[in-house]
């Protein structure tokens, strides 16, 4: 019984931590498949978390909050798309700048609205749990309490499937991938490279904003300057580890979520310092990349601006 409880708890915590990562890394897959690198995911997550927490606090509606979070992330990503696609600037530097701006503006807004405090107040309603929606009574059973998870987890998996379907089973998906592999060839065949790259890059921000919003509304229940601490970059690592495939990236995120869950579950073990445990997800990322990275191939035109007429 105790063992089953621990297992269920591990699973639900894994799902809780991986769902923001799944959304964000799916965003990463979309934009990188279209050939635009985006290391600003971290800042977009932070900005999305701010929007979601602030609106979630004032409207008491997590869904409105999440929507605004997505818009916030999308806005930053649109900026990134302009710099990367239209201005053909440096995508890495732009991403760094967005990490500064996303967090900076996020804290600025929070300080303005919450009396100078760098963190928002706790939101009245977080993202609903699955069993609450189903109307299950879980007050009696400890197992049900342990197995609880947020609805957004399901959405994450649905999105992963949807994006896989679009990328690999539709004409649009083929065009997106063509933009990332050989934009010149795609252009010759009448694909609007600029438009596709704009849409995909902006979508990546929307997804990162959702990811940040989920972190704020289902894990932290507020925005703090450290609510997003490296998840954007872990999601980026998941994209590579998942070989730029939606399903692969999702599985990678589950692994990282599991590492996070272990730090929580093992947190009670007295001989294990919690700081060492907290290194675990990062060490694991490195180890996993050491094994898998050679087998993954990035989109060929990743990170390179496309000049019309180039071969």
């Amino acid at each position, binding site marked *: 019984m105790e063992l089953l409880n621990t297992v269920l708890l591990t699973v639900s915590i894994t799902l809780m931590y991986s769902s923001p990562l799944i959304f964000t890394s799916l965003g990463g897959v979309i934009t990188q498949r279209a050939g635009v690198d985006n290391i600003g995911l971290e800042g977009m997550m932070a900005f999305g978390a701010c929007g979601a927490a602030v609106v979630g606090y004032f409207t008491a509606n997590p869904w409105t909050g999440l929507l605004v979070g997505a818009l916030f992330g999308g806005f930053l990503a649109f900026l990134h798309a302009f710099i990367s696609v239209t201005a053909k*600037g*440096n995508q890495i530097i*732009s991403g*760094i*700048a967005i990490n500064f701006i996303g967090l900076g503006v996020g804290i*600025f807004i929070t*300080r303005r609205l919450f009396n*100078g405090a760098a963190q928002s107040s706790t939101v009245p309603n977080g993202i609903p749990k699955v069993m609450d929606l189903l109307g299950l009574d879980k007050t009696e059973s400890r197992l049900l309490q342990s197995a609880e998870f947020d609805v957004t987890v399901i959405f994450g998996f649905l999105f992963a499937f949807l994006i896989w379907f679009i990328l690999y089973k539709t004409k649009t998906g083929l065009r997106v991938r063509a933009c990332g592999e050989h934009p010149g060839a795609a252009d010759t065949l009448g694909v609007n490279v600029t438009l596709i790259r704009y849409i995909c890059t902006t979508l990546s921000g929307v997804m990162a904003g959702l990811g940040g919003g989920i972190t704020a509304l289902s894990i932290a229940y507020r925005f703090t300057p450290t609510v997003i601490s490296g998840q954007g*970059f872990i999601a980026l690592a998941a994209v590579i580890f998942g070989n730029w495939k939606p399903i692969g990236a999702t599985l990678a995120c589950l692994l990282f979520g599991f590492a996070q869950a272990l730090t929580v579950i093992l947190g009670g073990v007295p001989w294990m310092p919690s700081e060492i445990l907290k290194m675990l997800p990062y060490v694991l990322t*490195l180890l996993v990349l050491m094994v898998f990275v050679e087998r993954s191939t990035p989109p060929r035109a990743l990170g390179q601006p496309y000049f019309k007429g180039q071969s």
Partner: protein
Amino acid sequence: MRKLIVKALKKPFTAVVFALIVGFILGAVALAVGGYDPVRAYNYLFTGVFSSTNRMMQVLVDAVPIIFTGLAVAFAGKTGLFNIGADGQFILGQITGAVIGYYVPMPPVLHPVFILLCAFTIGGVYAGLASWLKNRFGIHEVISTIMLNWIAYYFMIFIVNMKSVKVPGSQHSPEILSSAKINFFSREFRSTEEGMSFVDKYPLLKPFVQTDAGYAIILMIGVSVLLWVILKYTRLGYELRAVGYNRFAAEFAAMPVKRNAILSMFISGGVSATGGALLVMSTSYYITMLGASEGYGWDGIAVALIAGNHPIGCIFAGLLYAGLKFGGLEIQSRMRAPTEIIKIMIGVLVLFIALAPALPRLAERLDRKE
């Protein structure tokens, strides 16, 4: 006139000036939207830095660690490597400074030198690890160094939180021995009778006595020049830059590309860690349990980008950055306007530096119209 504009647009420096102006304008917009008077805010920003020699010296003191991380990122950048891991290496430098500074008693001059050597080596190896991971496993240094940053951060918390290290009733490690401190004048000296009369006697030296100014400043200038000379006038520097320009050409010219990449990251990491150790030895004196990394490495990335990866440029970019940060605090304390406005300004500045490659193209387009 048009010719002048075209010519100016082709210079990299124009992008920086342009970025700076736009940064200030958008910062003003953000302030105005937030309901703060931008003119007053910028006034505080300016007077916050320039109203006294003490303040200006404080900016220089604050700039030292940022310049070091900036130099680290810039040096790796010249080799075509992006050292996002400067933050983690800096933290390891801080740990080295705090641990050796307290636990290994040594004579005064030797103590700081020993700390710096250790910090340089440890930071260098840590950064070299990222380079090795890239050579051996093909893991991009942008990903690996970010992971290493977090590992270093939690390692610092781990060290501070150890029962034998943490000062009871506090959140930090014990203060380093005075033999490891490298200020020109000790902090105690400031408030003694002797110190006060000294300031009265030599008013010009006031900022040196009343701030944490120390030998770190001299070392900072020395290291900047040294890195510049290495890059510009030595064979090693030539090879490193060659790899940065065109990895394959360098390989074809029989340069040891992989070895040089590790060496470049080693130096870069060492420089960053040196900055961390200097911060502990001249300002903080101990390491603290923090909720998040202080972000010196990220500041350094912005500095290197503003400086266009030029070591001497890093000094000025670092001063600019530290000045903005210091003046930003003044805005916050006087107007209760969020100091994050500085972060936003820096972000906008960097954003426009990302746009820099567009400027020469814009110039060409203008040229063609003529």
